[in-house]
């Protein structure tokens, strides 16, 4: 027994060390900056920060904009989840894949696309929505509707159709069936999707920063402004703490809701059926959603093809032209890809270890508890602002023995940490779903532990592993929050380069930013569509 625990500790040691050095240390370092003044906890300072009217405004705006974004995403996503996962029509699979696109788009790109759509001169410019909370909420919903479609859709797909049929046989109208049978059965998926979307909305960074500017700040962008522009580390640390607390609470609630699935429900994948007349409202709503999702992207693409009043590829040829700092957008793309590949293998190696340790069969209660704690621990990076993490890296990993300021691995490590929870969430259900008796059968036939892995785990795991790799790659490519702190001035990643281009005045810079956004979006979308072809259900289903 003690030997098993020792082996468990040994296996867990690597990911734990990584988490300790690259997450706990930087984040606590950042928090200490603000809370620990002259050798003691500065409580009065904390209270002073919490009493500021601007902090109240920022927190309130974060909460209500996230709630509104979540609500919009839910309302828009539900009909699409039904249409895309329960009905069969030509192109359904392609549409499902297309629906995933907004979620993997880099936040900066989403911000740019919405500015292009709503800004002066944009197709919806006359509405005057640019720079208003409506723009931010619309962008948040756009970004997260994919999560709702995905999470609720897969649950809906595997919903046993018989209770609904029984209700219909008892005289319930389709609307009554939906309200009394289907939605209650979907409630766990709905709640889970809503809490994840709320989490993503409340910690959104790139979108809010590009659309809200200084006027409409959320906690996340406020932390950024406080640290970079105002150098008020104490306030930034306090806000980080507030955010951490709220997010951890949300995660715990989500975990609780996920861990009590109704045992009487069976996973039956019902055969999708042809659309009927009653499905027209859902089809119309889905079409509307497609238009809403497509419009910003379309304006982004058309905008990128427009330079100095004429159509052409001028913005794209400008991608190769060096700016004042001597960097080019194409160079930034190469940097982005390199960084993302490094981040991906790190996240995969670490995530695989965590998933393996967390899902092995436990022989005692202590062991079980250790394993599930470990699993939860690696969800933490999801809850900490990427900005906090990035700034924490800067102030803690800058002196020996851990002086990584000049290391080319600094940015990949930070991105890997951001991608790690997604990798773990993709791999854990797959590994946990393997019947342990398969491994025992192989072992009893004479397979060594290594052979057991090859025979039983690998055939099931390779596709999810590839999918997780693609997912991590896409996330790293678009990562902006932490990267914007850590990236070296002369070697920006593409999202950072786009943000810089936006900051420079002039329409040519803006046009180049649009072209660069299309380039970045294209790259992530290609990666993500490749992942989607692998058809791994747990990808993106947090």
């Amino acid at each position: 027994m003690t030997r098993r625990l020792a082996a468990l500790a040994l296996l867990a040691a690597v990911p734990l060390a990584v988490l300790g050095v690259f997450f706990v240390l930087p984040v606590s370092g950042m928090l200490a900056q603000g809370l620990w003044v002259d050798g003691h906890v500065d409580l009065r300072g904390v209270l002073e920060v919490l009493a500021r009217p601007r902090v109240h405004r920022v927190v309130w705006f974060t909460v209500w904009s996230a709630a509104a974004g979540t609500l919009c995403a839910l309302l828009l996503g539900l009909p699409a989840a039904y249409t895309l996962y329960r009905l069969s029509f030509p192109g359904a699979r392609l549409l499902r894949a297309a629906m995933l696109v907004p979620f993997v788009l880099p936040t900066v790109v989403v911000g740019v696309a919405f500015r292009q759509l709503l800004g002066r001169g944009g197709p919806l410019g006359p509405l005057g929505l640019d720079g208003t909370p409506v723009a931010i909420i619309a962008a948040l919903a756009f970004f997260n509707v994919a999560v709702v479609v995905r999470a609720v859709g897969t649950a809906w797909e595997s919903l046993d159709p018989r209770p609904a049929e029984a209700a219909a046989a008892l005289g319930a109208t389709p609307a009554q069936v939906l309200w009394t049978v289907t939605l209650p059965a979907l409630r766990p998926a709905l709640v889970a999707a809503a809490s994840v979307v709320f989490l993503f909305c409340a910690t959104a960074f790139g979108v809010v920063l590009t659309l809200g500017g200084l006027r409409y700040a959320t906690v996340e962008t406020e932390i950024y402004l406080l640290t970079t522009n105002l150098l008020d580390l104490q306030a930034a640390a306090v806000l980080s703490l507030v955010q951490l607390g709220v997010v951890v609470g949300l995660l715990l609630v989500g975990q609780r809701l996920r861990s009590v699935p109704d045992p009487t429900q069976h996973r039956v994948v019902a055969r999708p059926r042809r659309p009927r007349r009653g499905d027209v409202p859902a089809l119309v709503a889905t079409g509307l959603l497609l238009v809403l999702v497509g419009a910003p992207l379309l304006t982004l693409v058309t905008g990128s093809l427009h330079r100095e009043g004429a159509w052409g590829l001028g913005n794209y040829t400008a991608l190769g032209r060096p700016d004042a700092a001597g960097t080019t957008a194409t160079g930034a793309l190469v940097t982005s890809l390199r960084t993302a590949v490094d981040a991906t293998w790190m996240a995969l190696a670490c995530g695989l270890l965590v998933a393996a340790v967390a899902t092995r069969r436990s022989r005692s209660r202590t062991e079980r508890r250790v394993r599930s704690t470990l699993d939860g621990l690696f969800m933490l990076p999801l809850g900490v602002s990427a900005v906090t993490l990035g700034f924490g890296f800067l102030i803690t990993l800058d002196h020996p023995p851990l002086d990584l300021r000049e290391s080319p691995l600094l940015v990949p490590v930070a991105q890997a940490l951001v991608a790690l929870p997604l990798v773990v969430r993709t791999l854990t259900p797959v590994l946990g779903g393997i019947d342990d008796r398969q491994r025992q059968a192989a072992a009893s036939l004479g397979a060594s532990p290594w052979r057991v892995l090859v025979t039983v785990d690998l055939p099931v795991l390779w596709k999810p592993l590839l999918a997780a790799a693609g997912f991590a790659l896409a996330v790293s490519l678009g990562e902006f929050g932490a990267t914007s702190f850590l990236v070296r001035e002369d070697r920006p990643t593409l999202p950072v380069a786009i943000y810089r281009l936006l900051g420079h005045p002039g329409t040519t810079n803006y046009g180049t930013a649009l072209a660069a956004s299309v380039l970045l979006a294209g790259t992530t979308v290609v990666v993500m569509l490749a992942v989607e072809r692998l058809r791994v259900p747990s990808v993106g289903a947090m």
Partner: protein
Amino acid sequence: MLELDRVSVSYDGVPAVTAASLRLPEAQVLAVLGPSGCGKSTLLRAVAGLEPLAGGRVLVDGADLAGVPTHRRGCALMFQDGQLFGHLTVAGNVGYALRLRRTPARDVARRVDELLALVDLAGYAERLPGTLSGGERQRVALARALAVDPRVLLLDEPLSALDATLREHLAGELRRILRRAGTTAVLVTHDHEEAFAVADRMAVMRSGRVVQEGPIGEVWQHPADAETALFLGYARVLRGPAAAVVARAAGLAATPALAVRRSSLVVSPVGRLPGVVESARATPEQVRLVVRLEEVGEVDAVAPTGAHAAPGDVVHLTVDPHRLAALPES
């Protein structure tokens, strides 16, 4: 030769198996029989090295297996639901262990064909497990387990996932195959019919302890106690005066308790025990009765098909002494 010497296993400090001792000679089949939750599967898993021992030793051919990992024990384990590898064909599954041992491909193919013929699945080599019926899957699992001539074959309720007819048929098959392969095997089951059909020896387990062990006929003839008798398919246990009356009618010595099978009391004109029929139910083989006997009370009895015995009739019963078991204490 498999030996279990006071083997104990516990989960989180709760004992699942307590000091179980068993001996199984070469090429014999032992059935471990017990109600669900009695620890019989745990015992099997302990032999396979899947559960750490809290005490005692497991020996194969005199060698202690402590510290030997599962894959080096040479104990092939077959599960209730087969646990075939879904991505491998039938041939791939059966030949799995052979390929692990780097057997040349030609020999693997030959042996796989032999084994598939042995389990009556010749021609199934290229099928995938998902396309097989439950019974076929179990036979593939059996062939896979037999492929490397395991020192001990461990069968965990191999037939209980199947329906009744198939189970009966496969139990006979299993015995034939194990006999022909000359395999030493331990079969865990909660079904005494299955145990009788397959095994040479039997161990009865209850609440983590082995309560009785021996050649199957002997255990069947002399159950250790009332509970064991009922579990082995005896219909009732009579005690005190009732036991004495029936024992006397069978020409046996008086005994404090007597386990009676349903078929040990037979309606016959020459019967010496008169009683009144309480209920009757016809089966294809015989008529099953419940009869109230004087001084004894309710007992189960049988009458030949066609015999007229309706509730309320008076019948006479003879006793078959070979279908009774005297129990040591009440």
